[in-house]
């Protein structure tokens, strides 16, 4: 078990190294990726700006709190792009070009190698930095005490968020095993993710419940700041520990179905 873990850690290290070398070959693309991210960041900031301009407490959230939520959303988007996005987008290419065939024959987990192989530095840099910046600014403006336990739990929650993000956003990408027209599916999952532009308590209760339990996108970006603001209930905290495992399990099941379909329906 420990040996397997070590093997996978080593392989992942090689992935990171290889991706870095490869991406340094195309510095111009790196630059372009960042301009796109800055444009998206601009949109996120507009939501904060509107809150500041209206200048009132919206559904119990001050403009500073809004900034912290948008910061958390921005950072999570950055991590998603860093670790997963390009892999998920590439799944359809693997299926179409048949490169999945070669990956299948490798003596490591196919899911590991197919969904974690690429690490994308270009599309993530701006978001991770800007998101962290927003969180720090909002944190200090609200005079929330910086205690080790608060910071550590916050970081743990960010990690859980990343795991949960992988699990629930892998599932829509798996549609590429059944249809080659995946653009719309990807757009849709991005649109759902973008619901996090505003804190979950802005939404009506039915939308909020769906986004917390059924397809828990809100959990990922809302729970870490809610914890910092001391607004996370115990029940929610427990759910945040269960949800990543549950959805990892579900996505794993769906992955197996997708691969079985691939190897029996294609030629």
């Amino acid at each position: 078990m420990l040996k397997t873990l070590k093997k996978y850690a080593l392989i992942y290290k090689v992935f990171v190294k290889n991706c870095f070398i490869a991406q340094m070959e195309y510095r111009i693309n790196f630059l372009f990726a960042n301009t796109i991210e800055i444009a998206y960041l601009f949109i996120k900031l507009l939501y904060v700006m509107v809150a500041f301009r209206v200048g009132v407490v919206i559904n119990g959230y001050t403009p500073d709190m809004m900034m912290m939520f948008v910061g958390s959303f921005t950072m999570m988007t950055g991590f998603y792009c860093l670790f997963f996005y390009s892999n998920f987008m590439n799944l359809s290419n693997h299926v179409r070009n048949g490169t999945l065939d070669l990956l299948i024959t490798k003596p490591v987990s196919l899911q590991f190698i197919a969904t974690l192989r690429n690490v994308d530095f270009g599309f993530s840099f701006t978001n991770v930095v800007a998101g962290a910046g927003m969180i720090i600014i909002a944190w200090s403006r609200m005079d929330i005490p910086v205690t080790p336990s608060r910071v550590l739990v916050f970081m743990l929650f960010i990690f859980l968020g990343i795991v949960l993000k992988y699990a629930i956003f892998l599932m829509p990408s798996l549609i590429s095993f059944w249809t080659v027209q995946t653009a719309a599916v990807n757009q849709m999952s991005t649109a759902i993710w973008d619901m996090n532009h505003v804190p979950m308590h802005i939404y009506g209760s039915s939308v909020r419940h769906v986004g917390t339990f059924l397809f828990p996108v809100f959990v990922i970006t809302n729970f870490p700041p809610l914890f910092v603001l001391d607004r996370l209930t115990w029940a929610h905290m427990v759910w945040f520990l269960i949800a990543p495992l549950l959805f990892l399990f579900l996505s794993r099941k769906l992955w197996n179905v997708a691969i079985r379909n691939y190897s029996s329906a294609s030629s």
Partner: protein
Amino acid sequence: MIIEVDGLSKSFTYHKKELGLKSSIQNLFRREMQTKHAVSDISFSIEEGEVVGFLGPNGAGKTTTLKMLSGILHPTSGSAKVFGYTPWERKNEFKRQFSIVMGQKNQLWWDLPANESLFLNKCIYEVDDVEYARTLGELTELLDVKELLKVQVRRLSLGERMKMELIAALIHKPRILLLDEPTIGLDIISQRKIREFFKYYNRDKKTTIVLTSHYMNDIEEMCDRSIIINHGRIVFDGGLNEVNERLGHKKIMKLVLSEPVEEWVLNQVGEVKEFKDTHVKFVFEQSEIKKMSRWVLDHLPVIDFTIEDIPIEEGIALLYQSGGEKHETA
């Protein structure tokens, strides 16, 4: 027996799309599904150390067979055992013992020097450092690519890239090497070098090699045994030089006539293969050689005439034509 295949079949369904606005609209509501039988009920077995070639026209089922042997595809029915494992169960112990190279798909990272991809494979196959260094040294020496290890793959020529792909596939010393069109797109010299490498490697390591190819030369030079597939069925299994025997010892007679003859006259004699002006080609049983010759010389205005064996290419073409109807296997 290192590979045993019994009654393997593979079929899949796809939907038909016709061109035009009208059918686009029809397609909105109803899609016509069709079934294609890529491989139908094939059986064969391969011993350790053999080099076996799959020959057949496009879409005959060669690649599909190879994919089932490597566990990429599930068959629709039938069974296969490779070192006792069922390939499509995809056990890691099984995967560690073979390699597949597909001429049109690469596993090397495009923007990286090849040695980075090789190192990744070392980690994936858990090859230890000493073993890795030795195998790498040996293979680069054999293929003469030592200096190219640090060059980005995209800057390599097609032939050089193929050699690197081979090293990547052999770095863990597989017992079986599956090759799908390994020389496709390569120039003649690179083709020859790669072939020689395979021959040497097979002799030296006793590695079993199973390959598919369009190129007759690949198969003729490398394989002691060929399995010819057409329409998903095996139509021949054996040495290429035995193709003729399988065809029932047929011969070809070529004639040059002094003046054209009516076709019905020729048809009286035997099976006319080709007929153009004064040039005629017959196919006939070896046993009829005397009777044929006498009749032809007596009744036709012959200037020149030769009798020869059927060339392998033509023999195989004949097998393709007869494929499907007659497919008893050795």
